[in-house]
């Protein structure tokens, strides 16, 4: 009996061990899948669904003011992205020690510190673009997209996810900047990458493309009102694509529901 019991026990222990291991493995898998889903969600939110430029309409001031050429747009887009990643990481790393009551001033100070770093770096290495961005480089501090992400995401989530969120939001913002820059530069002066050497060094002069020969500049596209109009068209395009996808999804859903019913019956 004793002999019988012992192996049984050990068997049971083995089984429970196995079950534990399986559970742990499943949990791990689940956690990895969750993390993957989280990253995917962050990417979709930053690049499309919750794009800071197109949907949240944050940081409109630099968005409209400096996108008269692609070069300026890339310069400001990269600077904003850098600041956004760094500030998200820092805010997330210190999130347990920041008192709730004074979190906003602390976030602003962190962002201001990183903007100063970026500004000094650009002053040192890309002086031309530093000059043409002018006041809008230090004004990144007041860009609501950055403090918005610090408050809404980074202050509640771990460092890695926050960094990824910063990257995706910054990328979404930069893409909108660059699209606006392309549209306005082509309409305004008929060129692309004019002045790219200011950002990328002397070799970049070959990047300059003469898209079309304009007798006179179309000043409206270069001035801020043109940016507003182009921005309106971009938002309309995004909404049109969303509506199109929605209309398609409704059809898909109907099919799915029919299948479920078949399974349920059988």
């Amino acid at each position, binding site marked *: 009996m004793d002999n019988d019991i012992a192996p049984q026990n050990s068997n049971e222990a083995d089984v429970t061990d196995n079950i534990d291991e399986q559970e742990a493995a499943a949990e791990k898998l689940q956690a990895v899948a969750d993390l993957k889903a989280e990253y995917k969600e962050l990417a979709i939110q930053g690049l499309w669904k919750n794009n800071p430029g197109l949907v949240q309409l944050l940081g409109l001031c630099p968005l409209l003011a400096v996108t008269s050429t692609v070069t300026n747009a890339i310069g400001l887009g990269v600077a904003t992205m850098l600041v956004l990643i760094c500030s998200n990481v820092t805010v997330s790393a210190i999130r347990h020690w920041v008192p709730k009551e004074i979190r906003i001033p602390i976030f602003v100070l962190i962002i201001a510190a990183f903007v100063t770093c970026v500004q000094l770096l650009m002053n040192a290495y890309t002086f031309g673009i530093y000059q043409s961005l002018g006041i809008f480089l230090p004004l990144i501090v007041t860009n609501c997209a950055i403090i918005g992400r610090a408050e809404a995401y980074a202050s509640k989530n771990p460092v890695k996810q926050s960094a990824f969120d910063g990257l995706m939001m910054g990328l979404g913002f930069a893409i909108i900047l660059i699209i606006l820059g392309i549209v306005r530069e082509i309409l305004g002066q008929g060129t692309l990458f004019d002045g790219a050497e200011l950002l990328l060094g002397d070799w970049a002069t070959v990047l300059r493309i003469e898209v079309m020969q304009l007798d*006179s500049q*179309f*000043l*409206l*596209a270069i*001035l801020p*009102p043109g940016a507003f*109009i182009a921005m309106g068209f971009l938002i309309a395009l995004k909404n049109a694509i969303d509506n199109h996808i929605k209309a398609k999804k409704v059809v898909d859903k109907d099919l799915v529901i029919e299948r479920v019913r078949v399974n349920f019956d059988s």
Partner: protein
Amino acid sequence: MAFWIASSPHNHNQTKTPNLMRLVIYATLPGILAQWYFFGWGNLIHIALAMATALVCEFTVLSLRKKPISHELFDGSALLTALLLGICLPALAPWWISVIGTMFAIVIVKQLYGGLGHNPFNPAMAGYVMLLVSFPLQMTLWQPPLSLVAVDLNFTNTLTTILTGFTLEGYSVEQIRTTIDGITMATPLDTLKTNTGLGLTVLESIESPVFGDNFALGWEWINAGFLLGGIFLIFKKAIAWQTPVSFLISLFICSFIGYSISPDSSASTMFHWFSGATMLGAFFILTDPVTGATSTKGRIVVGLLAGLLVYLIRTAGGYPDGIAFAILLCNMSAPLIDQYTRPRTYGHMKGDK
């Protein structure tokens, strides 16, 4: 036998949009005729170009928006917009000026906001301002009256100048604008502004031939033509008299004050009335029922504001004429003015809610 019972109103107004628009288009004819007589075929060609563009744009947008095309395309509002824009353009501006301006006016200013009746800004003036801001060089190529032009500007010459920039004999626009004396001619308002900036008095400035015998050679008759058309419209009750009258009085008072303070550096009241686009703006653009104020008191306020703005822009602004800018600013403030000038409902006390 059953009587047909209908609730009030019993007396229906038969005026429809196309009829009103057609009436306004007819009323511009005296002014256009004067413009043709003094400045040649340029504006007529621009009007034709603008009208063709307007019809094409309107058709495209209406079919994209799935609207009743036959009903809305020919209601005359797009044609009127094109006509007003064509009148405002410099006669020898290149052809793409009127095409781009009309496209902007019809597609962006009018249709994207929801079509006729929903646009917050007057399409013709918004298109004109867009052109003036975007192409300052082409939009200031004002041609002096025909009697001062050395080149024979007949129809073919004007057409080739608009299409290619040169007359058949090869004269450029700059050469056409230059008199035998070698001085480039501008509009009277422009000349006055430049000369006052140079320190000349008004009396010295108006010796320039563009001023003619009275106020402004050619321009005074164009303005008189639009005044005539405007009075015809008021007589036909197509527009309310309050807006143009208060606008002209406001401009008169402002220029009178300016003239009595420093007669050497300000133009006379009648010069302000009969030069530039004063009468066109007063009777044809400020009275736009869509973008203007709707109450009687509101119309008077809008007119007064527009007069003040025109005077300020003409004397202190960067552009020689300020009608278009003043009207856009008034369009912006019209809803607010309407809010504060609501008429009292019959039977209610003043201040009652």
